[in-house]
């Protein structure tokens, strides 16, 4: 955990302060001849309260960026600062949700969601005395917010995939994180459940105003949820494009059919197809569905 000297960065004064900053950070796996650069030196700034989506071809280092911000990986070169401090020494609270909900099968939904309160300070102090009262109410309120009211006593295996993913989101948010990291959280869900969860995610974000970093391969999802979309190249990953999403909030599914949204989607798609090295032309056999 000791990052050695953790330089304190001057917090920039502007309309929004920089919350996450990548400074020529790169990641190389392996050594010598077998070394593979997963992420080329990358610089990136994310403001506090911003919702940023990372999209790109598979294996482009999207998740690597997420892991660095979550302090699970250290950059091979360069620096990553979160809340003004080099990672490893940041005092912030982080929530994380993967595509795999990883709920603990031996705990009911309420206890699963409560898990961070058992671990993260300052909640862990007094956990035993508060878990039946204050914390329970807190969990129930959050469950209700994602449409899981009354499901606290159920076990994960009694829930559908979409419900498990809602519970997973609750677990990532119960401890009031400053930063939420999402790695393709809705990737395994069907189209309609996914759209439902986008709306829930947007509501949660609008009500909590925390910084969110979302990794996804669904361009519609990125455009629906994010303030800003970063498109990455194939390995070794670089940020090819970084553009704001100028759509009003709250966004709705209907908006995804409007020309602005469709145009944005097409532009992103063309960029990713280019990044994969493809032509972008899909051959449809005549008459094929």
């Amino acid at each position: 955990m000791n990052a050695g000297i953790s330089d304190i960065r001057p917090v920039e004064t502007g309309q929004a302060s920089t919350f996450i900053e990548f400074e020529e950070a790169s990641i190389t796996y392996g050594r010598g001849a077998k070394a593979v650069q997963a992420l080329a030196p990358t610089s990136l700034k994310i403001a506090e309260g911003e919702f940023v989506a990372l999209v790109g071809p598979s294996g482009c280092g999207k998740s690597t960026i997420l892991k660095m911000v979550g302090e699970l990986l250290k950059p091979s070169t360069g620096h990553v600062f979160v809340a003004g401090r080099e990672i490893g020494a940041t005092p912030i609270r982080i929530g994380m949700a993967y595509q795999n909900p990883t709920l603990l099968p031996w705990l009911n939904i309420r206890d699963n969601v409560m898990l961070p309160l058992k671990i993260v300070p300052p909640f862990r102090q007094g956990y035993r005395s508060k878990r039946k009262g204050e914390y329970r109410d807190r969990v129930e309120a959050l469950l209700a917010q994602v449409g899981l009211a009354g499901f606290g006593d159920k076990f994960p295996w009694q829930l559908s995939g979409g419900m498990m993913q809602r519970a997973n989101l609750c677990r990532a948010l119960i401890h009031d994180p400053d930063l939420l990291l999402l790695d393709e959280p809705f990737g395994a869900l069907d189209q309609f459940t996914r759209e439902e969860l986008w709306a829930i995610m947007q509501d949660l974000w609008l009500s909590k105003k925390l910084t969110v970093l979302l990794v996804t391969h669904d361009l519609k999802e990125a455009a629906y949820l994010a303030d800003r979309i970063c498109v990455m190249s194939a390995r070794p990953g670089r940020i090819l494009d970084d553009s704001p999403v100028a759509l009003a909030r709250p966004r709705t599914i209907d908006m995804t059919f409007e020309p602005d949204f469709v145009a944005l989607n097409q532009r992103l798609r063309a960029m990713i197809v280019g990044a994969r090295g493809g032509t972008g032309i899909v051959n449809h056999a005549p008459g094929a569905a």
Partner: protein
Amino acid sequence: MERVSEIIREKGASTALIIGVFVFWELFCLMAGISDILLPRPTQIIAALIQYWPAIWPHTWQTLYTTIVGFGIGVVIGLLLGILIGSSKLAYDTAYPLLVGFSSIPKVAVVPIFVLWYGAGTVPAILTAMIICIFPIVVNVATGIATVEPELEDVMKTLKASKTDILWNVSLPRAMPYFFAALKVAITLAFVGSVVAETVASNRGIGNMMMIASSSFNVPLVFAGLFVLAGLGVTLYVLFSLIERRVTGWAHRKTDVASA
């Protein structure tokens, strides 16, 4: 009602099989005219059990005692070693080859060494029972702990959970089904260990009783000893199965799916 009849059908079949085996055994011996010196009939064995019960009882108690004590110590050591090996890659890579080598030694072969150190009697039986049940517990617990989903570990790490937090909240509960599966194997192995040690070097216990009975050609008593061992083994197995159901019911959920 459907469930009740299903249980009766399930249990009924296995009970019928057990009874059938004994009936076949009885009839086979009778019809083939096999002497009770070679293979006593079940009825003769049960008669011997009743006749010699006052003499068998202390031996049963002794075997049960050495087995449980050896098993208990083995479980504690196995659990601790399993946690250590399962939670550290370094410990896993370092200790595993030694453990495999150690476990491939036939445990009968170490009984004379224990006798050399502690003399014939209770201690070698306890140690043999202990040593024989450590390995399955270590391997199972280590597997349960080492196979925690990496995503879950990431989630815990981003919460800045300490190693003990992860162990108590995730790894250990997750390893419990593996642990109980190992306990059921280990308890039957522990009987093997204690009985082998008693047979080789002890003046008490079922193993010793069977040795003496066979040297005086009291074959029904030898078989009565086997019956007692089987009874003890089954009882403890069932006991651990019941505890397992209570503690790790979540891992056996398919038997009663609640309507969600």
